[in-house]
């Protein structure tokens, strides 16, 4: 985690609203992955260079369309996006912090220290909130693969790695979901 924050600060320091970006980045980037990349990859966001009113309009539109963000979270996103991706920002910016250091995270933090016991009843809700948009109601599949009775459930290493670090078009969830969340989702999926 130290690597991620450190890099975000270095990147931010080159930009106009560096302190704002640095302060907001961890929460904002987590929200971007968790709530925005459900429908579209983050490259669509990072290529924009918009003034605050247009970022506000965009975030409001997405909220109306079903992005699961509270008003507080929407305000935070508008502040972060308009501080980082403003019309004067350089064409090329470093990618969002959460993409950096995935390998280190994998080695050092990918698995819980001790066994985490998943709670299927809690997992149902976590799944619905975070995974269902792509993997379908009841984990029956959608734009993402069907997970009910999927062989990956029996290969816990592969399951954890995919959830934490993403694979193909699936975003990494390592900065969004806690280990308990992931264990709960896994436990619930086994009941499907």
């Amino acid at each position, binding site marked *: 985690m130290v690597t991620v924050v450190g890099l975000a600060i270095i990147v931010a320091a080159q930009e106009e609203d560096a302190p704002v970006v640095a302060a907001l980045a961890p929460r904002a980037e987590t929200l971007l992955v968790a709530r925005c*990349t*459900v*429908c*579209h*990859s983050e*490259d*669509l966001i990072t*290529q*924009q*260079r*918009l*003034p605050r009113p*247009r970022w506000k309009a*965009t975030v409001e539109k997405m909220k109306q*369309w*079903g*992005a699961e963000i509270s008003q507080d979270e929407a305000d935070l996103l508008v502040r972060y996006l308009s501080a980082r991706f403003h*019309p004067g920002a350089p064409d090329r910016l470093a990618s969002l912090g959460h993409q950096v250091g995935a390998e280190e995270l994998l080695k050092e933090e990918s698995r819980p220290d001790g066994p985490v016991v998943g709670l299927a009843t809690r997992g149902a809700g976590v799944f619905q909130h975070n995974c269902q*948009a*792509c993997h379908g109601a009841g984990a029956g599949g*959608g*734009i993402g693969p069907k997970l009910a009775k999927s062989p990956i459930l029996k290969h816990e290493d592969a399951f954890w790695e995919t959830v934490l670090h993403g694979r193909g*078009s699936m975003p990494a969830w390592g900065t969004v979901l806690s280990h308990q969340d992931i264990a709960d989702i896994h436990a619930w999926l086994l009941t499907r």
Partner: protein
Amino acid sequence: MTAEQEQKVSRRSLLKRVAGLVAGALLNQRLAAAATDEDKTGSRGKDPLMVRVTRPFDAETPVREFASFLTPNDRFFVRSHFGPPAPEQVSEANWQLHLGGLVERALTLRLQDLRRMEAVTITAVLQCSGNGRAFHRPKTPGVQWERGAVGNAQWTGVRLRDVLAQAGVRPEARHVQFQGADRPVVSSVPLFTRSIPLEKALHPDTILAYGMNGRPLPLLHGAPLRVITPGWMAESCTKWVTEITVQAEESKGYYMQTAYRVPTSPVELGSSVMVPVEAMVVKSLIAGPTEGEIVKAGPISIHGVAWSNGAKISAVEVSTDDGKSWATARLAGEDHPYAWRQWQHVWTARNPGTFAILCRATDVHGVTQPATSPWNPGGFLWNGYDRVAVAVRR
């Protein structure tokens, strides 16, 4: 004609058409490429497309590809709001086209029904309304397309009006709505529902296409059936069509009433009447030399393509001195109403240095491509002069 014969014929015509401007080794290379053209993506050459958005997949064609008259299927720009539907949903066995609304008889058609109808082939430019959005200032939201969200292909299918005639259009009909099989990830996001005025729908050149460059329409381009409205921008060319509804009004919803609209006069957001984007605007692109290319002093071939809203291109001009003087390019190759026209100008570069090459087209109505397009809040319809910087060396 069997599918195999059709394929051979189309390859032959593709070969013929590709042979336009570029001579020598480059031509041979392109011919070889065209001869093996299939729907596979990314199997040949490097960087067949420049990806703008990973998911849903949006990608543009590198402009060097526009040295060919026809843009190969696997190098044709890709744009959709939600990505393609699951392949089995639009497979020939499962796919159906429902036609209803203000008609005498609602119809359900399968692909074989359409194939039994008279087939027409039209060569037409397909262009995203946001092509060139990245050049608008102030910047506007949306996919930041540069120059390559456009292509020229042969579209084969049936006339929309022949299909509408089978159902019988009622007198109160004014618009025809298209719904594709693509769906958003989250059901609260509005569907991509679009309509075109009845007049455009009944135009003999407006077709429902199941073929692209002599091949079955690829999934990314709308398989098994998409709308082609020649001369109009691509948001009218709905992909993966499953429902056609004849109605009295324009489609409701975000993608018709809010998005894809431009002000009737070039002014700020909210202070003008907004109308749907429809026809294309006169435009030209430089396919070669490419941006940043190092060329040898002496005769240099500057070539590219130009098109308008279906009106013929009457002239393309090229400047190598930042617009102080313009030379008229030679129009070349095939001449079809909705296709782009290839052009070439041989520039004799005498001195080394860095040069900006500009081009601008004029159509038969006397409309000339402007230096910079009028700004609009959606960043649509960019058609400013195309510009390529090259370094001339001894």
